[in-house]
């Protein structure tokens, strides 16, 4: 097994790094797009009851539908390949982002907002100086959850022809070649763990900066 794994890296390391790159590209571009959509929608949701209810029902429904089923169902409508995979991943990343953004803004104490306004802040200044910083820990938590979801789903996106590290596992399962399964599995697991670690560091740093400011 070990020799087979070493052999794989000797002959296919180019292909391997390409799959890693593809996986990262899929995960981070979909996360970025999802964030651009989720932040304003989440902010609106914290102000408007209707938007919030819509977002929460949407999140509830997506939570019950398996991501795998969601990826497959989209094929007849948007086809296969990288584009459709991106669309699917963006949709899957939205629920944790939107729900936690709404939660974050709702958790900002009303008194503090009133104090801000009575000190003469405009709505924009209030958002930038009071609401956003106080909602940030919740939003970061949402991003972390979305990242886990996206990296996991990106490994399944290989079934709709988008490549990524899932490709290795799929090939391994298809040909029953254990070295592919192990390399693919370990790589996806590591990618997810490293992403989590980096993110935990960021959250910790934001928290420390917060404490220094007060």
């Amino acid at each position, binding site marked *: *097994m070990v020799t087979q794994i070493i052999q794989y890296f000797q002959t296919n390391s180019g292909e391997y790094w390409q799959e890693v790159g593809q996986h990262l590209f899929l995960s981070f571009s979909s996360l970025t797009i999802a964030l651009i959509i989720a932040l304003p929608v989440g902010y609106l949701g914290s102000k408007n009851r209707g938007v919030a209810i819509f977002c929460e029902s949407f999140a509830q429904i997506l*939570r*019950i*539908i*398996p*991501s*795998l*089923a969601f990826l*497959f*169902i989209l*094929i*007849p409508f948007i086809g296969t390949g990288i584009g459709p995979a991106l669309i699917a991943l963006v949709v899957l990343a939205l629920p944790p982002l939107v729900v936690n953004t709404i939660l974050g803004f709702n958790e900002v104490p009303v008194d503090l907002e009133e104090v801000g306004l009575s000190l003469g802040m405009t709505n924009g200044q209030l958002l930038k100086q009071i609401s956003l910083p106080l909602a940030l820990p919740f939003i970061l938590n949402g991003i972390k959850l979305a990242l*886990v979801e996206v*990296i*996991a789903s990106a*490994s*399944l996106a290989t*079934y709709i022809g988008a490549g990524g590290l*899932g490709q290795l*596992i*799929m090939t*391994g*399962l298809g040909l029953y070649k*254990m070295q592919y*399964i*192990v390399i*693919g*599995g*370990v*790589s*996806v*697991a590591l990618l*997810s*763990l490293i992403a*989590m670690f980096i993110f935990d560091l960021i959250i910790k740093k934001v928290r420390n900066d917060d404490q220094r400011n007060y």
Partner: protein
Amino acid sequence: MIQYWQENSTRMINLTIQHAQMVLTSLLIALVIATILIAIFLRKKNWLNLLIYIFSLLYSVPSYAFFALLIPVTGLGETSAIIVLAFYSEYVLLRTFITGIRNINTNYLEVAKGVGMTNTQVFTRVQLPLALPAIFSGLQVALASTMAIATIASTISAGGLGDLLFEGLQTGRVVPILWGTILTVALTLICIIILKLLENIMISDWWEVEKTGR
């Protein structure tokens, strides 16, 4: 759609039962382990936090990779699937149970001791009943997420409703994919409803009173 059902109903029912068995077995195992772990470690806060952290790392490993990595250890099939699903549930259950127990106002614990309860009595008569709502919400979250993840177990030949999704993917037909999705969602909803009924019976009236105030 209907024609497909007529032709494959026996198989579809069997797959649904298999899916339910897989998920419920893993949930039961996770529940038993969670209760034991909490009973042992309840008074050792650092140990418990460490445990939860370890499980959170495992939880962030994408399920596709997790399934794949168990093949060299426990082989293809249902056993591997149940192990993976149990790990995911374990994290959700531990976290929600602990939060539920820690959120109990410490005054109650002091009064419980003050009226002459032993540590075990405090746990079984005060902490556990007061944490029941949190325990049930944890069970529901674990149930919904493992129901969805279980579809991926089809890739390691564990059967279940994922089989229908992959059949559709391989034959290029939407109908099996739709059926797979519908049956998974329906199964999840039915299990959640049963869980809710169970909750109503076990928690009796006090929670209703507590929520509505009167």
